[in-house]
């Protein structure tokens, strides 16, 4: 897990591209007109109120539910690591954290140990998954999703139930992964503050895409403020306060907020040509 791995998908080409996607169930559009593209090395975050169709969007893009209109293109041979929003494991199945790591694919012991270590679960590897706390289980889900070094990580509220320090650590881990694995990340987050920090593109969803672009541009857009009200303003303040710079993987600090501040469906440059 320590080496830098290049994605199998050539950069520049999107890992996944959805255009005009709509899902209709029981005469109701759950989502409509959703455009979404994830490139290698890019973090795209979906935000939106409860029931705004975030999970529906990612499940559609993953091909888990049928869409009624629009097109979804996946890069050929795309590998996916998925952390679903909900997962409960029946008590009748004996399943240790370690065995859970190889649920969808075989992995060497060293890789399992490294992945568990990365999320701080080394001491938990022989415990049954059912006894893990909510936060521990979320970390296990994340470790399992990244162990196969997928091209695309799809994380549906991956830090639910994780405490504040753990949350920051996990987001740092996720942000680091795209550099190390060169993978794209499609993230659903309810935490506006965090979204502002590490994301390249924010898509604000409310049944449809109500705005998208760089975090700063979205945070300043009127649609976003209408949707999130005072919380939005607060997040923006925090954004200005804390995130007027970014850390490159080698530790250098760069000023941000100059280049990518436009609300649009286009994609900001991503920097995954690291050393």
């Amino acid at each position, binding site marked *: 897990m320590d080496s830098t791995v290049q994605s199998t998908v050539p950069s520049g080409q999107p890992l996944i591209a959805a255009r005009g996607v709509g899902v209709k169930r029981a005469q109701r559009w759950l989502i409509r007109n959703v455009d979404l593209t994830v490139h290698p090395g890019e973090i795209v975050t979906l935000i939106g109120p409860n029931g705004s169709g975030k999970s529906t969007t990612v499940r559609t893009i993953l*091909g*888990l539910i049928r869409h009624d209109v629009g097109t979804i293109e996946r890069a050929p041979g795309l590998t996916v690591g998925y952390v*679903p929003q909900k997962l409960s494991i*029946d008590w009748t199945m004996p399943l*240790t954290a370690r065995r*859970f790591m190889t649920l*969808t694919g075989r992995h060497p012991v060293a890789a399992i140990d490294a992945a568990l270590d990365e999320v701080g679960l080394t001491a938990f590897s022989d415990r049954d998954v059912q006894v893990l706390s909510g936060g521990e289980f979320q970390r296990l889900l994340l470790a399992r999703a990244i162990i196969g070094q997928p091209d695309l990580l799809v994380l549906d509220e991956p830090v639910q139930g994780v405490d504040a320090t753990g949350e920051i650590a996990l987001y740092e881990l996720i942000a680091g992964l795209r550099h190390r694995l060169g993978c794209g990340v499609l993230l659903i987050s309810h935490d506006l503050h965090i979204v502002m920090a590490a994301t390249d593109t924010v898509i604000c969803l409310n049944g449809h895409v109500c705005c998208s672009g760089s975090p700063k541009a979205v945070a300043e857009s009127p649609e976003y403020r209408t949707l999130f009200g005072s919380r939005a303003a607060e997040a923006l303040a925090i954004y200005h306060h804390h995130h007027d710079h970014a850390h490159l993987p080698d530790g250098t600090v760069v000023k941000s907020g100059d280049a990518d501040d436009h609300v649009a469906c286009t994609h900001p440059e991503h920097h995954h040509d690291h050393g």
Partner: protein
Amino acid sequence: MIMDEFLIRALLAGVGVAIIAGPLGCFIVWRRMAYFGDTMAHSALLGVALAVLMDVSITGAVFVVAALGALALIALQRRAPLSSDALLGILSHSTLALGIVIVAMMTWLRIDLMAFLFGDILAVSWADIILIYGGGAVVLGILAMIWRPLLAGTVSGELAAAEGLHPERARIIFMLLMAAVIAIAMKVVGILLITSLLIIPAATARRFARGPEMMAVLAATAGVVSVMAGLSGSLAFDTPSGPSIVCAAALIFLMSLIPTGLKRGPAHEGNMR
């Protein structure tokens, strides 16, 4: 020593069925499909009736009917808003009743209904044993091949599908394997008790298993022990063999619940959800 040969055949048949039933039974327990399995098994009697009517192989007909029943159930569950519990309850008992009625109507044929309902392990032939072991090897081989997608799909179908496995395909194959086991095991324990031979050893194994694969092996072991104990009991007390085997399995399950002081898992295990 005719008695001896009877016994050897019965024992071989029972052991073979238990070895097949253990791993499959684990999935029935994990997927909470006990009722589903019952429904499939009960439909087997329809297969028997049809086979006799059409003069074809009983095992083959039972397999086909149970498999079609399972596929129909999957299709029904996908579209019917009716709770699958009620749906299975309706189907389970109506197929059983229908099977008994049809068999009873065919008065010109002498079908030993009891043998099909409760099994007749002492009447097992060498041909049956070849079928059990040959068919069993195929069933377990296929199960091993679909193990990962089936297990991943049991934990989460969406997770498995998102990561490129084919859990739905594995599930349908699993249903066919179940149909095969019902056809193979019918003669040993009878259609009324097949699900118990699938479920009880798996439930017994749960407590001692540290992983799904270990549970499958332990379930097969518990099944083998149940067959041996049940058969001995059946001979000693002159009781019907199928029900005796199930009684033995249940007894072993109860014994497995007795605290042993065996240390299992971390100390905070009482903190179960």
